[in-house]
């Protein structure tokens, strides 16, 4: 893997919005909902582990995106990429987790997580696509 400015830009384009959204979503906007669901039982959560996870995910997303040879505009390609990879992450963070860990009510868990990942990848997808935009796109 060649480390270049765009790869690092892509990592930041994923990690920074995810960190900000993740923190505000869980601790400012919906703490009561997550407390009611009772799924996260570590007090306090270990933030550096979450951050390391985000950086690793950012590296992988930033590595994969240009290999898909995106040809459309930043917004279209970013939302498409975000939709695919967001669904992939949702399947493990929400469905697989609920399959093995006690959480109730299930509809609330799936709903709040679906909303979170939708917002997250609607932001980070176009951000990564913008980092990898072609020079022609930048002139428009």
């Amino acid at each position: 893997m060649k480390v270049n400015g765009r790869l690092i830009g892509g990592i930041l384009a994923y990690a920074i919005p995810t960190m900000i959204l993740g923190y505000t979503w869980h601790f400012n906007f919906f703490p009561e909902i997550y407390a009611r669901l009772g799924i996260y039982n570590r007090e306090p959560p270990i933030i550096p582990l979450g951050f390391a996870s985000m950086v690793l995910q950012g590296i992988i997303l930033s590595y994969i995106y240009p290999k898909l040879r995106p040809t459309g505009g930043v917004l279209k390609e970013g939302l498409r990429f975000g939709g695919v990879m967001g669904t992939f992450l949702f399947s493990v963070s929400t469905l697989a987790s609920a399959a093995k860990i006690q959480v109730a009510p299930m509809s609330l868990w799936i709903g709040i997580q679906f909303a979170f990942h939708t917002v997250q990848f609607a932001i980070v997808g176009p951000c990564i696509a913008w980092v990898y935009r072609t020079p022609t796109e930048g002139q428009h």
Partner: protein
Amino acid sequence: MKRHILTVLGYTFATFGTQGPSHFMIFSKHYSELTIMRAEPNFALGFSSMVIQGAILSFVYSRLRRQGTLFEAVKVGWLFGLFLLSYIGLAEAGKYAVPDIASWIGVEFSVGLIQFTLIGVFMGLAHRQVESRAL
């Protein structure tokens, strides 16, 4: 379409084949120490999760610039495995009260390595077989 169906089947087989023995036999004590685990896992949710992951992996692999070697498919499997394991191994350890974080990370990543190596092999074979027939 056939290559995607075969990949999903391979993904499901490899996941059940590695995570099943890991959770219920080899590391059952390790998982039982996590107090919020379900006594009986919800198979419908777990299965739907595997189908989604397998379908997306196959779809993305088919669109990557590639040469079609088996090792290349394994590398893509590792890449997606690392993406999932970053959540399961690291983020979950940060949110759930796992008794021993190092042990949690070690178990998840070592079982995941076997799981996604198998997934990569199955995916490579599924895509290579269907593509070679199409030529």
